[in-house]
């Protein structure tokens, strides 16, 4: 049994090393955001001055506002389109061009963003020449992010839709519900949780994107990642660390709160099911 013991320890060691690898950069970012030294790698005592300076950093603040607006619009649009696409792929087994459709839904997940950004921009420029619309800016960045976000939203919602018990929808139809009623009253509440996850995921993807935004942005439309990227390119910058710490704090709070709410909802549903089974 020495082999099994060794395996258990080896497994634990491998997992710990892996998580250390994943989290070390995040820890380093946070630690050095409190560093009282203009050279971020040399520790010289604790300070909050980098945070205090952020509100006056108009470039960063304006970028943040634009990014939040785009991320909000992207997440909403991506969840609507993603739900439709997931529904089409799961519920409608056969329609013309289904293979092309599923290919186009999945491709943006892996397609290098440089190619997606360049091609979308070149098309929009042609469109602008022909129709005088759209100007490069918030709208064009949103289109690019929507494309990427829709792919992620579809994958998330699709996997939930596939796990649903079709008998529930059939039962609703047997009881006389119209297809739209089945969708709004039965299917939607059951996939709502995955739609929330998809919304949050696409929101963060949009908030983080550099390449698509760089291609699709116009004059005056500089998103926060573009500001961060241009500073990071030049070298280490304490303002970037401060932004990172705020992001990490917000994400941690958000994720903990969401998982708590989801766990509570699950528990309540389990209790209701148990009560219904007893009755």
């Amino acid at each position, binding site marked *: 049994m020495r082999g099994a013991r060794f395996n258990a320890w080896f*497994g634990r060691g491998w997992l710990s090393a892996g998580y250390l690898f994943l989290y070390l*950069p995040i820890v380093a970012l946070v630690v050095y955001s409190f560093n009282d030294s203009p050279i971020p790698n040399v520790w010289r005592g604790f300070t909050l001055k980098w945070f205090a300076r952020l509100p006056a950093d108009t470039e960063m603040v304006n970028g943040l506002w634009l990014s939040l607006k785009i991320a909000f619009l992207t997440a909403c649009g991506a969840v609507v389109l993603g739900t439709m696409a997931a529904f089409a792929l799961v519920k409608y087994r056969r329609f013309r061009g289904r293979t092309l459709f599923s290919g186009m839904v999945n491709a943006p997940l892996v397609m290098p963003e440089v*190619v997606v950004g360049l091609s979308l921009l*070149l098309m929009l420029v042609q469109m602008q020449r022909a129709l005088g619309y759209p100007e490069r800016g918030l709208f064009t960045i949103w289109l690019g992010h929507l494309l990427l976000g829709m792919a992620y939203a579809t994958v998330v919602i699709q996997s939930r839709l596939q796990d649903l018990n079709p008998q529930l929808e059939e039962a609703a139809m047997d009881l006389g519900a119209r297809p739209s009623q089945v969708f709004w009253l039965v299917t939607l509440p059951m996939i709502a949780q995955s739609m929330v996850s998809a919304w949050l995921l696409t929101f963060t993807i949009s908030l983080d994107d550099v390449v698509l935004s760089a291609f699709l942005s116009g004059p005056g439309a500089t998103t926060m990642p573009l500001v961060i990227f241009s500073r990071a390119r030049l070298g280490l910058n304490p303002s970037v660390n401060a932004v990172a710490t705020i992001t990490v704090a917000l*994400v941690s709070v958000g994720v903990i709160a969401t998982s708590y709410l989801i766990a509570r909802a699950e528990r309540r549903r389990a209790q209701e099911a148990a009560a219904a089974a007893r009755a």
Partner: protein
Amino acid sequence: MTKALRRLFSGRGAVVGLPYAFLLLFFLLPFFIVFKISVSEMEAVTFKDVLTLKEGVLQLTVKFGNYVFITQDALYFKTYLASLKYAAATTLLCLAIGYPFAYFMARARATVQPALLMLVMLPFWTSFLLRVYAWRGLLAEDGWVAEALIAIGADQAMAALGLIAAPGKLLHSPFSLVLGMTYTYLPFMVLPLYGNLAKMDLRLLEAAADLGATPWVAFWKVTVPLSKAGIIAGSMLVFIPCVGEFVIPELLGGPETLMIGRVIWDEFFSNNDWPMASTVAVVMILLIIVPLAVFNKYQAEAQEARR
């Protein structure tokens, strides 16, 4: 006509039609336009249309000069090769780290598995750009990782292998580039592998043991072949985007790690040569089209199999 209209406004027509139209217009059509521009001639400030009306006659001007130029210029060839090389190295590293990782996750106690999974997904939610930037700090002079690697003498070995330019200079090298890409894409390898390994029927391993296989043999002959779909899905999720990666080479790469994403970027933003940028992009699409088809096939199969 009315029938078609009614179908369009019925639930089903709209559910399929709206996302379909969106993807055709904003994903597929742009690729045709990129191809069209790649064969257009460059004029003073802008490119010429492929189809022009001259004295009432429609003229088609197609120029394959850019493609000829790419095949003849050694720089482009070297850059494409380097992109494929770094993407392949990253994929292999992700597999070497990620497979055992996903395996031990899937064999951990059922009660801790959701937490382990959550911990792999969490970095997704914090900015990827900021995490790549963090490696600049960790690998720079006096950085934590740099100090540790120098303390154990790993930098000497890497310099001898040509992974870094000189001992102590870890940043802006093939080493830091591949490390950054491996770091960023590791979750994309772990997640499909975990999904695959977690639902494996463990009785198969018992059967193998009953038939006299050692755990090691059972692992290679049962577990690994059964996780083939996960290996392929994970590898494609890492390899394809890495070929065209731009941000990581820009922040962690160096002068000798020029990748093709940067070339497209420079042709477009610095040289303003849209036809050339398009040509480079078209050739890149051709390079990744086979992996892309493999990925789509396995993705579709996995989705069908779940029913």
